[in-house]
């Protein structure tokens, strides 16, 4: 897909995000907006996947695990726009009897979701397990995962990081949403990650960096990561993003991590985001 087309998808995804969160009067717009470009590129340009015939086992397909499940709005929007389920369903987000739970659920059988997430720190382990099964099945497709930077404070992430490097899980590309914000404030103030790149390198991972809002950087780096698979090392991409990207009054502030815009704020946001594919 051309970069212009990808941008158009992401613009619609951002509209979906703010409308979903406003419609539910709850949810997490900040991180969702920040990852809209990445997930659009991943699902519309990078991954080999089959939206028309979702299967839990995903044999022969690339798999994606969202470890920071609270940014479910962006994932649901991208899945719907990619064709996993009807876009009208986005309007049910966080409402009673919906398949679109506040945090991703397998229980509700929403196509595209293979693992529940929300309680943080578990997705890297899940992705490693899926990657190991791909190896056992001689399935050459890849496994992708996304993690928040605040999420890296969870100890299980580092158990998983140690395991993947020691056991050469090299069909795995993890990405960190490095926006420097978490609920209580700046990551540096809450619990600094220190030398993040150095930590992953010390754990034995191949570390790449990219700009999560620059499409050339996103496409180039993800393709480079693909080239680096199969060489004995797991791959992590530290992706610099801005929380709330695309909505001027939300950009760069932790205050929009988990707060819904009111009607007036929603309109202000929608005025900045072009409707490209048609609202749900």
């Amino acid at each position, binding site marked *: 897909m051309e970069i212009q087309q990808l941008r158009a998808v992401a613009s619609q995804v951002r509209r979906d995000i703010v409308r979903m969160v406003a419609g539910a009067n709850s949810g997490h717009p900040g991180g969702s907006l920040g990852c809209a470009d990445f997930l659009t590129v991943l699902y519309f340009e990078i991954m080999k996947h089959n939206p028309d015939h979702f299967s839990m086992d995903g044999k022969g397909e690339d798999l994606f695990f969202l470890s920071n499940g609270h940014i479910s709005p962006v994932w649901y929007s991208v899945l719907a726009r990619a064709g996993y389920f009807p876009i009208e369903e986005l309007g049910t987000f966080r409402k009673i009897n919906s398949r679109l739970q506040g945090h991703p659920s397998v229980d509700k059988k929403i196509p595209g979701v*293979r693992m*529940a997430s929300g*309680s943080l*720190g*578990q997705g*890297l382990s899940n992705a490693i*397990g899926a990657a190991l*099964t791909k190896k056992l099945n001689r399935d050459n497709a890849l496994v992708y995962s996304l993690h928040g930077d605040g999420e890296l404070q969870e100890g299980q992430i580092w158990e998983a990081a140690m395991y993947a490097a020691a056991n050469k899980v090299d069909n795995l590309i993890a990405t960190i949403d490095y926006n420097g914000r978490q609920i209580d404030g700046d990551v540096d103030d809450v619990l600094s990650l220190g030398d993040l790149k150095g930590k992953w390198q010390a754990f034995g991972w191949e570390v790449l960096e990219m700009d999560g809002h620059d499409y050339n950087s996103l496409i180039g780096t993800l393709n480079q990561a693909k080239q680096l698979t199969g060489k004995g090392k797991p791959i992590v991409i530290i992706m610099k993003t801005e929380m709330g990207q695309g909505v001027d009054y939300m950009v760069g502030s932790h205050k929009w991590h988990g707060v819904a815009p009111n009607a007036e704020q929603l309109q202000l946001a929608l005025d900045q985001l072009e409707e490209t594919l048609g609202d749900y």
Partner: protein
Amino acid sequence: MKQFEILGKKDTRSGFGEGLLEIGKKNPDVVALCADLTGSLKMDAFQKEFPDRFFQTGIAEANMIGMAAGMTIGGKIPYTGTFANFSTGRVYDQIRQSVAYSQKNVKICASHAGLTLGEDGATHQILEDVGMMRMLPHMTVIVPCDFNQTKQATMAIAEYNGPVYLRFGRPVVPVFIQPDAKFTIGKADVLIEGTDVTIIACGHLVWKSIEAARQLAEQGIHAEVINMHTIKPLDEKAILDSISKTKCVVTAEEHMLNGGLGDAVAQVLARHLPVPQEYIGVNDTFGESGTPDELMVKYGLDTPNIVEATKKVLTRIKP
């Protein structure tokens, strides 16, 4: 009264080890993960036979459970192995979200459960695990009673698609279930038929209940003994069939009274057929160091305790 012959003495964890190896040979999708307790869990035979299907995770149980959940995507059937304490309490949230809520076909195999872990003491003697696991939607909870049944259960759970918690132990105890007995998840075994009182037990307390029934028979009391190897889903019919006959029950388990088999049975009775019930179990206290036998005596989980509880429950039946 049916007599049970002691076929030998073995630890239930060895039944797990043998069962894992055998199901590994039959089903190529079976894989195993262990958090640095391969010898203690008797998983070394599987590791040796299937090195490519064995995953040593190191002392990182949360990652082990998370990986096992991920491995089911693509059709593998992961068996995780560590002590019961580290299989449940330490990783409750990982089991809750990645296994139970996500409905993954993971078999959580837990050794060294309960007081009979012995000398290591209370840090390792988990007595709350059955309660935690049976509260989780989608989870099946199995506590087999001897070596043969643990082996049978280990193999049977591969045929069932869904999360399972399989609990067994360390001590060498009597083997009395026939090696070719059929094990069905969720179907209780009436080991001894009786008319005066029902004793419902699981795990190591099943043999002690058989011994208790023998002593009671000598005193003219005919106890029915049910081996409730599956705590969830609970065989309600077996319970109600027996209790509609005997009108009283003693439950026996190597677990806290809160949350265990006794609670599960009481819930069925309260809804359908309230009768007097006495409980054998640990009453809201941690364990301590000691030999398994000493601990079972000190904490009231021995054969004389079952005999005593049975006599007590009989006095509570209204004429």
